[in-house]
């Protein structure tokens, strides 16, 4: 955990708390907080089992909280976009390719994650969207090609409280993912 400062640890603990909530809801325990100027403006954890939507990862949940808040405040899209650039996102597990793509599309300022995600990781493990950047589907906008969207790479740092994140995941998988589709064995009480 060398190189993690107090700021990172503070917010990663909050992300872990979020992950714990997912754990309690029998979801894969990954949690996320989005921080703006030292203030948590959005938090979320995995909800893919509950929604049966495997794309409802912690990051997207937290992003939606932020977007909701921005909308409620009447922020314009420019303001919202700018705000995301100023945000730090803390997530207990490396964002998967989907989430990394989403974060690049949003133009998030910085991402700090806990453990690596060897299977799905989009920030170095499988792909490197944090350095490559990403764009929304559709390619150049035919109506306004000059405003073609930019690839937006983002700063990314891993390994903050990684052991805690892994421990939580291990607990979860030892208990068993209740919604894993193929029945094999009964789940033992947590």
């Amino acid at each position, binding site marked *: 955990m060398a190189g993690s400062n107090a700021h990172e640890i503070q917010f990663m603990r909050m992300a872990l708390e979020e992950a714990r909530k997912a754990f309690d809801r*029998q979801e*894969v325990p*990954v949690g*996320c907080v989005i921080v703006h100027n030292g*203030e*948590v*403006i*959005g*938090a*979320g*954890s995995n*909800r*893919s089992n509950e*929604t049966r*939507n*495997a*794309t409802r990862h912690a990051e997207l*949940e*937290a992003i*939606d*909280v932020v*977007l*909701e*808040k921005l*909308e*409620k405040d009447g922020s314009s*899209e*420019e303001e919202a*976009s700018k705000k995301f650039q100023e945000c730090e996102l803390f997530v207990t597990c490396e964002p*998967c*390719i*989907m*989430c990394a*793509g989403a974060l690049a*599309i949003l133009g998030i300022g910085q991402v700090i994650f806990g453990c690596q995600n060897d*299977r799905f990781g989009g920030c170095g493990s499988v*792909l490197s969207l944090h350095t*490559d950047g*990403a*764009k929304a*589907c*559709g*390619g150049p906008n035919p*109506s*306004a090609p000059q*405003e073609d*969207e930019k*690839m937006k790479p983002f700063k990314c740092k891993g390994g903050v409280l990684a052991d805690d994140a892994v421990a939580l995941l291990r607990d979860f*998988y030892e208990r068993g*993912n*209740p*919604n894993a*589709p*193929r029945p*094999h*064995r*009964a*789940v033992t*009480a*947590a």
Partner: protein
Amino acid sequence: MGSKDAVDRTPLWVWVADIESSSASSLIKLLSAKAPLRNLHHVKRIKRSLSPAGGRKLSIIVCVVDGEDGDDPTEGSEDGDDASLVEGPPRERPNILNDDVGVIVRQHSLKLYKVQVPRSPALSREEWVDQNKLWPCSYHPVAGNARSTPTEFNEKELQLIRGFMQAAVQQARIALAQGHQGNGAVIVDGFCGKVVASGYDQTGRWFQDRTTRSDSNADREARETGRGREAAHPTKRRDGDHEEREEGWSSPVPQSAEQKLASESASESSCVATLDSQTIEREPWSLASERDEVVAQGGHRLGLEECVRTTNGCGLYPQAACSGLEPTAFGDPQAKAGDNGGEVLCPCGIGVEVAVQIARSSARPAQPYAGKETEIAERDVKEDARCMAYEGSLSREEGIVQGGEKGSCISLKGCSNSNSNRDSVAELMFLPHPLKHAVMVAIDRAARRDLLMFPPWKEGRGVDCPTEDRWVDCEEEGREALSIREPTCERVKRPRLEPDQSDHIDSSRRREDDDPSSHPPEGGLLPPRPYLCTSFDVFVVREPCAMCAMALIHQRVSRVFYAIASGDAGALGSRYQVHAQKGLNHRYRAFHLGLTEADLQLK
């Protein structure tokens, strides 16, 4: 990374020897142990050919020419500068063989010569045919590492593909008419060829043309105008929906859930209804009314999404400045099941919407659906209605098909019990959402549809949350998945796109599935209800970006068809090959239909 993954099309030099058929099997064994053809799994070790003498001839690949395997492809061609092509003159035994291979070569007195073989697996059937002229290769489209063109389909299948793509294009038209990116997606159950969900881009002007976006006051004014206009057409199906949205828009203080429910039940047609896209085409929509439609249609849908979606982070930290929401009741199953748990089962118009959309497309004579399309669509409507109906809380098929006019209950009610104070916030979710790409929207709606059709197991309509010992688990997954987020689903092999069989297969399947909440699962096990889009095909107008492509991996779809490549945004062949990315736990096949903007006739 993208450039590194680019497929190298140049052939590769290998050492080959002609052998006797009697020694073939022992040599294959020896060589695959001592000199396995790494990264050449598509190349067959042995080639049969006719010898010039007229007899049969067997040639075996001994090993890759040194230097070819590594980063320097020029070295190999240097070695093979002269006439060492196929059937070229045997050359001296190279001194570059490693010891093990050298021993084998000496033992069998092999005479080596150089031959070129394809370096990478074929991406299409044509390419494979070409490859075979060089050296026999295998073709595994599923393991292919880039997009394929749909050359392997027969005319009937192509017709279906075109039809579904047309449905996606239809979605794109709706998106475009509402000021979003012109992109749409349709998810099809490959098993029965039925549309499961569709979605269109809802990113609005988030990424484009920002300067033209009017300020919120003007927007609101436009919406007011829209409401006035709307009131003059009370017969339109979307009225109830619309009105409700208007209230959400115009009142800065969100209504309480109770108020909303009251107004909802007061409204005769409060059910979800979608924008009739025929109307879009008929009427010259002003900008105002287009914006209005965003509210009327997208708005409500978003509202529904928000109902299903809850967040749990808000307001939980003292320093969290977010939205001032009270902590939600979500996560507390007791509270969630609450007073009107039964309502959760109400179909929230997802299926209705799908049905309506299909009905719409089938009712549309101008659509270039070829031949059977109308028929298929009609059957889909019935099918959908039946699917919805069998779950018990809905036996109003006609209502669904007609757009739910008979008031199929709206899910806001059901949702509100889980999270009443979130509803009001959800109502505010009207702006374009930067991540609501067509694929993401369609996936979300497929998931919600699934939730409604196969609701979570309930004991006597009671608590929504199963006790732990009733749940079952996938052991292997758990063991291997420490670092992953999603459980994988056993892949079910089913015939696809076979409309002829679909009727009876599908109905039998539905009967077996039945309503999981109507009877307790045998042996205390839950019915294995996959929550992922296993065996689903996805038709999307634009090549998915990295986010969408990976979302489709998470959702375990089996095939993706897209019409137009997305340049450096595309992740199914253009920039990345996410669908065939090494290391991921699922792959799907991607097909590029190679249409142009003009073909789509979006405008």
